[in-house]
């Protein structure tokens, strides 16, 4: 009869698989499980429709520098006239013996190739329309940024400080391809937006709200907890293994959702290749963040259910705090320290670290998009307020930096450890309360 003399702390593995398996089967029989999962998928698919729509709509090209216009009406676009040395404002002055260019040629005449940017100084751009060549005669005048190359732009990339400095020779500016940039930026902004807010926050809150709050509470109110508690098993164990069952259903679901979205956006997204492999680390970090966040929330909410029969109210209050923290973290792009007082803040660090690994050029893309090619209106101070390229502002809003003062990989690991620690603390507090709880 040795089996009857065992302590409760023996054969944990058998008990854990029994309760976890039981919990999984129980979830399968509950309508709420299916409702919350189907509703999440439907909501994500709806948002995805907007994304696919946006990816298939041509972003209207903007002629930032007005080179495609024909001011004097002689049939030659301004840019062609400037380049060939005729006056674009005088109808009688036009290039003789040259066929006029179609205006489209002068709309996006000089794209920014952000992918070829190297660390340090990059010499890009040329004076396609002759603005620089036209006004200045000496080579020193044509090389105001003093790099020995006439009529060009210096883009200085400093990834250590995450800065991009742009100095152009007078008259030289770029007229980037709005469609190309906008789709790349829009694609990334979509992934970060849906990932941080839709998956890490919303899915991370709603799955535990529906699936974890009642994990112990429902058993207590229905009286079926007696079957579990009348066994040689500590209450802390019951809580732990119930959470194991909860993970068993939520983690595969989150992973499946992220893989699905990764495949859809990877194939439909912009880019030269068939599939956007660089998105994979970003999606995986979103999935990992959502898994950890939903585990921590789940343990906390399950504890709320033990404390009070209306524990869902506490859970909603907590979710409101986390919503605030989610906004703070997203809007400050990782510059606030109050986010350390939340669960979601650490989850976002994981996503930001993953994005920095998958898209190392992301911050350059933002900087360049906000610079927009150097076009803009002069404001009352006499400075040029650049007009950002489409997609640059949303991308800038949803992007962030882990800002832990360590490398991205280390930030990823630290945030993971913090979230696991939060989960352990939530379990410990929950089981302490559960142990002292009288069950009727």
């Amino acid at each position, binding site marked *: 009869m040795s089996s009857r*003399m065992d302590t*409760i702390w023996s*054969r944990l*593995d*058998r008990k854990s*698989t029994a309760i976890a398996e039981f919990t999984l089967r129980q979830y399968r029989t509950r309508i709420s499980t299916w409702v919350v999962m189907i509703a999440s998928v439907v909501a994500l698919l709806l948002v995805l429709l907007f994304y696919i729509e946006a990816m298939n709509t041509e972003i209207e090209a903007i002629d930032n520098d007005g080179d495609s216009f024909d001011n004097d009406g002689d049939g030659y676009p301004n840019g062609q006239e400037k380049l060939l040395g005729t006056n674009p404002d005088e109808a009688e002055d036009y290039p003789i013996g040259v066929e006029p260019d179609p205006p489209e040629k002068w709309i996006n005449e000089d794209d920014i190739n952000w992918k070829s940017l190297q660390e340090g100084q990059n010499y890009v751009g040329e004076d396609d329309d002759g603005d620089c060549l036209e006004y200045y005669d000496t080579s020193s005048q044509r090389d105001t940024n003093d790099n020995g190359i006439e009529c060009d732009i210096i883009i200085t990339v400093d990834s250590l400080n995450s800065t991009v400095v742009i100095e152009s020779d007078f008259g030289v500016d770029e007229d980037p391809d709005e469609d190309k940039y906008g789709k790349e930026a829009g694609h990334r902004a979509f992934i970060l937006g849906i990932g941080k807010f839709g998956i890490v926050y919303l899915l991370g809150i709603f799955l535990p709200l529906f699936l974890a709050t009642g994990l112990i509470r429902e058993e207590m109110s229905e009286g079926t907890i007696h*079957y579990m*508690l009348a066994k040689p098993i500590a209450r802390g164990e019951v809580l732990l293994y119930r959470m194991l069952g909860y993970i068993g259903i939520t983690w595969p679901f989150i992973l499946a959702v992220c893989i699905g979205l990764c495949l859809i956006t990877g194939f439909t997204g912009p880019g030269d290749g068939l599939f956007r492999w660089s998105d994979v680390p970003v999606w995986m970090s979103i999935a990992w963040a959502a898994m950890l966040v939903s585990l921590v929330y789940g343990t906390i909410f399950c504890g709320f259910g033990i404390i009070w029969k209306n524990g869902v109210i506490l859970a909603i209050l907590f979710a409101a705090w986390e919503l605030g923290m989610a906004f703070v973290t997203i809007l400050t792009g990782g510059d606030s320290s109050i986010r350390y007082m939340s669960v979601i803040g650490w989850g976002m660090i994981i996503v930001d670290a993953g994005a920095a690994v998958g898209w190392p050029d992301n911050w350059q893309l933002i900087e360049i998009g906000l610079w927009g090619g150097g076009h803009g209106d002069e404001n009352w101070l006499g400075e040029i307020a650049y007009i950002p390229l489409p997609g640059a502002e949303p991308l800038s809003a949803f992007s962030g930096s882990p800002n832990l003062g360590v490398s991205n990989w280390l930030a990823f690991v630290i945030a993971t450890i913090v979230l696991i620690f939060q989960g352990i603390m939530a379990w410990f507090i929950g089981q302490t309360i559960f142990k002292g709880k009288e*069950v009727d």
Partner: protein
Amino acid sequence: MMPDMTQHGKAHTEQWTPQQNAPVIMFDRVSKTYGRINALNSVSLGISGGVTGILGMNGAGKSTLFKLMMGKVRPSSGAIRLFGVDPWKNPAPYSRVGFVPEHEKMYDWMTAFDFIVTFARLHGMTRIEAEKEANRVLSFVSLSDVMHKRIGQFSKGMRQRVKIAHALVNDPELIILDEPLQGCDPLARTTIMNVIKELGAMGRTVLVSSHILHEIERITEQIVILHQGRVLALGNSHAIREMLDQHPHKIALECDDARELAKSIIKINEVTGMSFATENKLLIETKHLGEVHKQLPSTIIESGRQVTSIDNPDDDLQSILMYLTGGSV
């Protein structure tokens, strides 16, 4: 710890040595209050071996007594020992206990077999061991033929038997059944009573609660009567029955003609008095309830009257309590 997915039982085991001489259940001046309500008031009990009936009306403290034993609630004062261990602090002794809760609610989506296997595994059994035990206990409560049906499809009596089977899966030394006969049909009652008697015969300590004396009487002679949180009487049911017999009882009969029926019933020696509540209702008074009940059916048939109901208006437990408390019920 890595789960033992193979389920062949490689986990380490530590020995927990029970106190050999400790009584199975020991209550030492235990009180339990919920707010201002005194659910149990200084109860002292020691039970080891045999079938014991815990008798009391609703709210007498039967369920509280069991919840204290099962470590569900903490005593307000006093000490409880289950195999020498405080159950509130340590659930280890439950490996030797089987508990049948009173609650109606079960996992209706599970089959009886799955239900028992799942909870057997919480005793640390492997899946294979648990399946073997589940087969054994299900045949013990005669549910082998329906064990792969969902519990939701079961009748009240079958559900009650599933609950009992689940409690027996670890071959417990102590079995606690909270109102196991409530709401069961006569056939299920008989089956459950036989199961309980058999467990007693196997040398297990069995506790059964009920609020109906004659049910308990059919199972056991050892009775504890709880009333308003106190142990009112403790002992053999024959002694209690004798006390009862000192005390007049009433039997109400409804029939087509009460006066005609009375002529036949007056012939039963134990009947000490009769009265007519209405034209169709006859009240019989007796001090020997069992004897009258034995003779009543044949007497009625002889009289040739149509009797539509036979009822004991004062429940026998109530009468006992009335007697024991001097009429304070």
